[in-house]
């Protein structure tokens, strides 16, 4: 029984269709990521779950109860905004206590919960800081603590890491994962960064232009993309013309070896046109069988094939599959 359910959600802004016929289910305690390029309707989806936007059609259910038209303030859904939206006139403590005070909790309970929330984001002792005196990462964590302090049914995060510099991102990503697991709160977070989605989410929904293209576990969407868009959005992909669609294979799954080792049955030979050394791995661009494809390999200290060399290429059937339709993104 899903904790949160979006069914046939469509949202129009005037003539712009931001979200179209979206269906999503999130289980209790699950972390779902909505992944997609800029403008695909991620924020809009999140805002409809939060109650900040009302769908044009469709319904949203929490615990089987229809909340489509319940105002945001009655939903008990915590949200971390893309720009954090901290209250600039309140200090860290009062920012986090805000949602507790609207619930008219007694002061000792408020204090206890604020302290707990601050501790979980590792900002103990920051209670009386003004939010102006915080770094971007600290502001982000205060926003997270503020959303968690109300012990929400569902936690929503809108691109929580996009405003931070890369070195901070990884650290905070781990922290968010820990905090979310610790509170065991049903979480939906939005991102356009596939690394973030793959490493944080239990399941990923990939969106494009308002339409959900695929939902699945990180491994599924990465290894078994439903279409060319998903295949490309989650990482480098070879999409080779095939009988009734496109043959999909990730570069790291393409097997190549030197022709001197003898050619064993299946596969075809190809010429190396480019070899890029990337530390542990080498990326080859190959030309053969009438197609261009990419392969990535650990070199493990072995010799690196040079442009002009002929190699033997194999595509393992268990790590490739045919995607129906043609390649529209190329």
């Amino acid at each position, binding site marked *: 029984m899903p904790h949160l359910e979006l069914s046939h959600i469509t949202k129009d802004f005037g003539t712009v269709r931001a979200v179209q016929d979206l269906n999503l289910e999130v289980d209790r305690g699950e972390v779902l990521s909505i992944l997609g390029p800029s403008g695909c309707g991620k924020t809009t989806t999140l805002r409809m779950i*939060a*109650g*900040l936007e009302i769908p044009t059609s469709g319904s949203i259910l929490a615990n089987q109860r229809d909340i489509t038209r319940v*105002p*945001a*303030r*009655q*939903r*008990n*859904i*915590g*949200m971390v*905004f*893309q*720009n*954090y*939206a*901290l*209250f*600039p*006139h309140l200090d860290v403590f009062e920012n986090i206590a*805000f*949602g507790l005070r*609207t*619930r008219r909790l007694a002061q000792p309970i408020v204090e206890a919960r604020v302290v707990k929330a601050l501790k979980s984001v590792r900002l103990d002792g920051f209670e009386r800081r*003004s*939010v*102006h005196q915080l770094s971007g990462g600290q*502001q982000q964590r205060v926003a997270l603590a*503020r*959303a968690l302090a*109300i012990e929400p049914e569902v936690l929503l995060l809108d691109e929580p890491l996009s*405003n931070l510099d890369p070195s901070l991102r990884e650290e905070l990503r781990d922290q968010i994962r820990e905090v979310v697991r610790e509170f065991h709160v049903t979480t939906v977070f939005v991102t356009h960064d596939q690394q973030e989605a793959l490493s944080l989410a239990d399941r990923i929904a990939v969106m494009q232009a308002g339409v959900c293209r695929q939902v699945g576990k990180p491994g599924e969407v990465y290894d078994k993309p439903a279409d060319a868009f998903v295949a490309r959005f989650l990482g480098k992909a070879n999409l080779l013309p095939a009988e009734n669609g496109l043959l999909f294979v990730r570069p790291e799954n393409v097997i190549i070896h030197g022709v001197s080792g003898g050619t064993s049955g299946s596969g075809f030979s190809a010429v190396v046109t480019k070899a890029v050394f990337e530390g542990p791995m080498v990326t080859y661009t190959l030309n053969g069988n009438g197609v261009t494809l990419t392969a990535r390999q650990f070199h493990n200290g072995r010799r690196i094939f040079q442009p002009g060399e002929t190699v033997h290429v194999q595509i393992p059937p268990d790590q490739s599959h045919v995607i129906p339709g043609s390649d529209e993104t190329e």
Partner: protein
Amino acid sequence: MIAIIIFFVLLVGVLYPNAYTFIGSFFPDGGFSADTYVRFFSSPSGREALANSLTISVATVLFSAAIGIPLAFVFHRFDFPGRRVLRAIASAPVLLPPLVGVISFLFLYGESGIVSRSIQNALGLAEPWPSLRGIWAILIVHAYTMYVYFFMFTSAGLERLDGAMEEAAETLGASWIAKLTRVTLPMLVPSLVGAALVTFMASMASFSAPYIFGGGVRVLSVEIFNSKLNGNTPMALVETVLLASSSLAVLFLLRWYEGRHRYSAVGKGVATQRVPITSGLAKLVAGVIGTVVVLLLILPHLMVLLMSFVKDGTWTVELLPPVYTSENYLKLFTDPTFLEPIQNSLWMAGVATGLNLAWGLLATFWLRRTRGNLRRFADILIIIPWALPGTVVALAMLESFSRVLAGTVALLPIVYFVRNIPLVVRAIDASFAQMDPAVEEAAATLGAGTIYTIRRVVLPLVLPGALAGSLLAFITALGDFVSSIIVYVYSNRPISIEILSQLRISNLGTASAYAVLLILLIAVTLLAGERIRAPGRDPLVQ
């Protein structure tokens, strides 16, 4: 309910008086007739007043631009000793209420002014010089008070300019002339047009200068007052309509222009480096010019201060006042008749400003949640009093409320209130624009209802800006002369009216003591306004 309060004020305070005036101007004695218009345009004096108003306004724009623009450039481009002090002093005219400024100019540069007679003595001239009067006197006073618009608009425009843009022009081989004419000035055009239109409207509206110092030069704003005084109400209405429509035309020109030339939000570029003035000779020249400029700027203030210590009735033919006393000030605070105007000004400005703040907040909250024609209608009504000269607003309200409020103590504070509606609403609007709309949504997700969000989040964020704007409104009301002279009654006579009465009976010292008090009140209020906008209260900058 809220909408009713908002529209009640706009319809009764703005639309009704102006519509009444407009329609009334076509019904001089009950029946429809455009006779009064015909009479206005066929009389030489009417045409003269209109022509004078327009000529003076165009000349004022040119004069103010000639002073304000170069000054803004000097402060923006050069670094010199005393730069910050000088920059603060450049805004000194703001401290002088219109009437006070005019009076001190009269006593400095008029026929028997101190400066005129000193120059006569020093150069051995037959007549005092410059002995300002008529159109020239008006123009000089206007240039002094209104160059500030050009100075401020140009300074703001220069601040917005990205220094990298000029550097880019330089690397592309532009000479300084080319840089100025092809890059800098074109980018400043929106600021300059804004300043020109605002100056034009202020000049059209100007009353004190032509009334006190004009020596019989006819201008529309004063003609309205005279027609009314002579009991020729139909003519006053026609003149009001003409003055109002020329100002409104300029207002709509300004809005249309602003709409077409949105200032693009300029990112963080390179700040222009100020050129330090280092060579000895240049420093000397700069120092001398600076001193002269400062002197010219604060001479009016000093003049009022000096006159406030003159014993009434003692200064006649001497160059400098012969007898000094502090009794003028003592009198203001000990004699109830003299204290009354001060109390009147304070309570009327206070009540009007309080209403402005309360109504302004209510209106802005409501307008933000409203779209469509109703909102557009409200927006227009709100901006109208800003464009209308004080004489127009006051006369329109006096005439249209002739059966209820005219002749009562309440009308003048209501006029102050209506005139300051645009100022306060704009200030509140600006604070709202600085607020991140997501904080309201954040409050909602945290369980806060509308009222709670307003009380705990929106008001604390908006109030500093709103209060700062209200203080400006308070100052305007405190120093007002134009609308006061039309609607005051004896029991609510404000300071400015009392200054005029004291002058009429030659109590120069008493009048000036009032003026100094007014200047001090304005200065204190401005300082308080600065304090409210303390740093750290601004919304988070991402």
